[in-house]
């Protein structure tokens, strides 16, 4: 056991140190002044920080990599199996739909991980110590994630559309730009919703499970609900608004034009906005 070798003197080495000890009262004279210039932090700093965070972990590479493989890979396979006649009055981006139905799970996973991994590792305390304005951190995460998800999914859908058009284009196809934007918007919003849910639940597995339930249950449940007379209307609404069906509408798979899905997109936007509001309220109230 170490015993105190010498009692530390109460007065510390005062060389070149201002007389901080002489003034113990509430006079906040800076005892130590750093040469680093003081900057008032703002959202831009938080965005830069979150951008560094999202691109410096493996989970981002994995989820987005699998997403691209699914959307582009399945899309090109489908494109190869179709003929020019199949695209009479539907957008050339349709082959991307099949990969997106699976790929949306990747974006959901990434959305959740962007925040829940910080809670899981304890990083969140370091983050909030550096940026005590919690709402700014969450806002930056939402913006950066949405931007990344939107760009990647728009690229994937657009790429599939271009390749398909070059394979099956006959000069007079339907305009498909809208389906790129709406398809990318839909899956990105799902990811943003996942981020908000992750922020509220603070637990990766829990939040991913909740989001999968939200996507899959309305797609499966109607099969049972439609059997009951009283629940029929609910079942029909679910059938109409579930995530896979929303994507199908966006890509014109049901009506044969690439401009559907507006109501479904609106509903998702509303739900996402509500979840974001809830996440902000809880974030401010709870201990980290």
């Amino acid at each position, binding site marked *: 056991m170490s015993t105190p070798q010498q009692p530390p003197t109460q007065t510390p080495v005062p060389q070149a140190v201002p007389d901080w000890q002489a003034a113990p009262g509430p006079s906040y004279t800076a005892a130590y002044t750093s040469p680093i210039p003081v900057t008032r932090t703002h959202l831009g700093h938080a965005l830069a920080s979150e951008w560094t965070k999202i691109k410096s972990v493996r989970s981002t590479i994995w989820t987005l990599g699998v997403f691209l493989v699914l959307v582009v890979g399945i899309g090109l396979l489908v494109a190869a199996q179709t003929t020019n006649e199949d695209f009479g009055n539907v957008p050339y981006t349709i082959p991307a739909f099949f990969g997106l139905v699976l790929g949306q799970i990747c974006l959901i996973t990434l959305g959740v991980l962007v925040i829940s991994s910080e809670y899981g590792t304890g*990083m969140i305390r370091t983050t909030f110590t550096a940026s005590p304005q919690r709402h700014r951190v969450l806002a930056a995460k939402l913006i950066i994630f949405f931007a990344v998800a939107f760009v990647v999914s728009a690229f994937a859908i657009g790429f599939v559309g271009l390749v398909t058009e070059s394979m099956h284009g006959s000069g007079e196809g339907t305009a498909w730009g809208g389906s790129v934007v709406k398809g990318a918007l839909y899956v990105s919003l799902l990811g943003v919703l996942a981020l908000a849910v992750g922020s509220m639940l603070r637990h990766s597995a829990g939040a991913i499970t909740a989001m999968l339930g939200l996507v899959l249950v309305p797609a499966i449940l109607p099969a049972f609900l439609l059997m009951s007379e009283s629940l029929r209307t609910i079942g029909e609404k679910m059938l109409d608004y579930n995530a896979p069906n929303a994507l199908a509408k966006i890509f014109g798979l049901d009506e044969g034009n690439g401009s559907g899905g507006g109501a479904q997109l609106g509903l998702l936007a509303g739900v996402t906005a509500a979840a974001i509001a809830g996440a902000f309220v809880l974030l401010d109230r709870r201990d980290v």
Partner: protein
Amino acid sequence: MIELEGLTKRYGEKVAVNHLTFSVRPGIVTGFLGPNGAGKSTTMRMMLGLDRPTAGDVRIDGQHYDRLKDPLKYIGALLDAKAMHGGRSAFNHLLCLAQSNGIPSSRVHEVLDTVGLTSVAKKKAKGFSLGMGQRLGIAGALLGDPRILMFDEPVNGLDPEGIHWIRNLMKALAAEGRTVFVSSHLMSEMALTADHLVVIGQGRLLADTSMADFIEQNSRSYVRIRSPQRERLLDVLHSAGITVVQAGAETLEVDGGKAERIGELAAQHHLVLHELSPQQASLEEAFMQLTAESVEYHAHSGGAPSPAGAPAAPSPAPAPGQWGDGWKEGRS
């Protein structure tokens, strides 16, 4: 300067931090001492705005933590060496922190160098040993070159070399005029690093005193004597004007360092001594006594609130009263 005023935190029924009032001054190392579960980490989390106080207030140079416009340049904190994403490299971990406060990335290289992690800057944090994780955490605390540094049990689980490094770092930081606030559950650790001591037990303030005062008041030195001719020895010492305390059937204790004098007296009077040994009550004992009292106080006084800003150093312990005293108190 950090000022706590009536800081209180409840977790359900449990009062983790109970009306703490003290301040942390710049230019010295202030030790924050208390047994495990005393509420040290909770207090520090509240200082950093991570946990919301149930009551009371913390101010950093007069401001609330979440109003600081450049927090990392004000306070650098190491609460938990593992509070980072293991999949991120040391460099990127520090870079994202730096960017959030507008600190240039050149500073990341500087602090990596300061803590000696430059060679593993590109390695993932999850491969780091506890000591390396601790260094990375400290690098994060130093990023903004802050005027206040806060460390929660920084030497826990470190090897002697790491402990030595952290001790010296803290002293050097304080000598530059910075505020250093460091917690520990070991008195011996505090005695080596701290200039000022804040002791808590069960969330209450037990002592707020300079280290020098604490040592002076608590490190009683005395001489222990055992002799088969106890009665005669007592007479001899008494007539020599030496005050003796009977500490056991055969053991006597004399305050102060008078071993030589006692030995000579015994020889003059041909008395047999079985033991004549100078003793030093350890600071650890003093600390344990101090905190044990707080526990006992709780056990006996049925939750009667202690006065805010509790007594200084060796608090006049409420006499460990009869069993049931508190019960009676509680009813009256």
